[in-house]
């Protein structure tokens, strides 16, 4: 593969990205690429910077240094008006779910489609119901997030991230609150999206997940990328 092909194929490209909050460095000099339709894990201990990396990707935070390109958009130079466009390409499963408390599960999930410009109520209803079925929450469609169990919230978050059929899925600990059954379901969904052509990026500290997949893994420690083996030691002890 020549250099131009490589560039063409890259959907995410981080180069020397640093993010600090005051004195705290969440990410330091991080460089990596993700090719289109990649299935990638990011792992590392608590506080390593995994969620911060995801935040930079959906522009929840701006990077302090370095440059990053996502699907042709340069995050360092993107304008305020373009941020929504970027975000609509990305489906994010947030670690803390970020469900809107006074909208039902259905309304939370449907909101993504409304934001994306879908007008037909019936199209939205159909797709949202399908997804709630897939994550195993068909009966909770009209429940409000504060009344859901931890695992149900997480599955609602998964449904919301997938409903817009995004080209990029960022999943921040998507199975942390789930029992093995439900985890399996969610992973199948992510794999299905991957099969459909989406690029999937999953952060996790669940070592079983890593061992079950033959996927690329990026190891982070204190905001720095570390080599696989060294980190593996860390993870498997």
């Amino acid at each position, binding site marked *: 593969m020549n250099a131009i092909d490589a560039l063409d194929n890259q959907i995410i490209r981080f180069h020397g990205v640093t993010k600090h909050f005051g004195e705290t460095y969440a990410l330091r000099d991080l460089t990596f690429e993700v090719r289109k339709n990649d299935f990638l894990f990011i792992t590392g201990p608590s506080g390593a910077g995994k969620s911060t990396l995801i935040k930079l990707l959906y522009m*929840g935070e701006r990077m302090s240094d370095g440059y990053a390109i996502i699907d042709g958009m340069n995050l360092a130079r993107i304008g305020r008006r373009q941020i*929504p466009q970027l975000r609509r390409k990305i489906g994010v499963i947030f670690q803390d779910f970020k469900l*809107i408390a*006074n909208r039902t599960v259905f309304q939370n999930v449907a*909101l*993504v489609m409304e934001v994306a410009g879908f007008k037909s109520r019936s199209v939205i209803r159909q797709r949202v119901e399908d997804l709630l079925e897939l994550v195993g929450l068909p009966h909770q469609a009209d429940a409000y997030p504060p009344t859901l169990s931890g695992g149900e919230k997480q599955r609602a978050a998964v449904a919301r991230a997938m409903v817009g059929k995004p080209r990029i899925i960022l999943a921040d600990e998507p199975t942390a609150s789930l029992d093995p059954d439900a985890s399996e379901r969610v992973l199948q969904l992510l794999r299905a999206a991957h099969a459909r052509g989406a690029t999937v990026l999953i952060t996790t500290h669940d070592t079983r997940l890593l061992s079950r997949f033959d996927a690329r893994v990026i190891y982070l420690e204190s905001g720095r990328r570390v080599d696989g083996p060294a980190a593996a030691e860390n993870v498997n002890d």
Partner: protein
Amino acid sequence: MIDVCRRALSDFYRHRYLHGVCLFTIALSVFIISAFALFFINAGELMGAWQQGIRITAYLKPDVTKKQAAELATDIEQYAGVASVSYVSGKEGLAWLKEQLGAGSSLLSDLKENPLPDALEIHPAKNMAAMAGADRLAGKIAGFAEVSDVEYAREWMQRFYGIYNLFKVTAFVMAGLVFVAILFIVANTIRLILYSRREEIEITRIIGADEAFIKHPLYLEALMLGSFGGVAGLAMLYGAFFSLMPKLSPEGLLPFFQVRFLPLELVLAILISSMFVGWLGCYFSIRRFLRV
């Protein structure tokens, strides 16, 4: 657009507690402002009604005929600040004077002949602003060749206009200050509502909503709050007015004056201002919550 309305309405329902509290505050604010307006308008009218008792008397020279007097009256009636002019013969004048003096009138009974000349009685207009220059008016009238002398309750009128002016100016200043205060109160309330909703707004942005998607329903809600609040506030005033008014003016307290509710144009102006204030409150607060 239909979409925005639909979302605004469901937001309205979703946040019924917040919006209820806000609506109540706006209603109370409109109530205060319109109660003010009601008071000042009626007070102004009252003073206008009261000054009917005030008149400028222009004594005519003895050789002025009734016809000349009538012509002069027509001229004077054109003047700014003059409501009407009436002709009073010397005889009528004496009768009036006797009546005014009451018990003291006995001192006039010794008069062999009526020393009072014929006169024009000039009633100032209700429009007091023009009357502030009563002195000037009197001076002008004195300038006519037919007029021998001009007389009016100078001291009383000065006091009256002094009060009236002070009243008017302070009323305007007060109304302005209260309006600004109310504007800030409504803006503050909307600010608190958006503050309570900041997480929801933030999440909506994070899943890809652009500014318009977020802002339009919020503005619409603010307009709705403003208009519903305005209607509720005016309804409260209307209720208070018609339940308290009969008790306020027992018979005889003020027989010559009828207290009236706000004129329709003002009611409409208040409603529109209330919507505008809602919009403005939203405008001022929303920036804080749309920053990255």
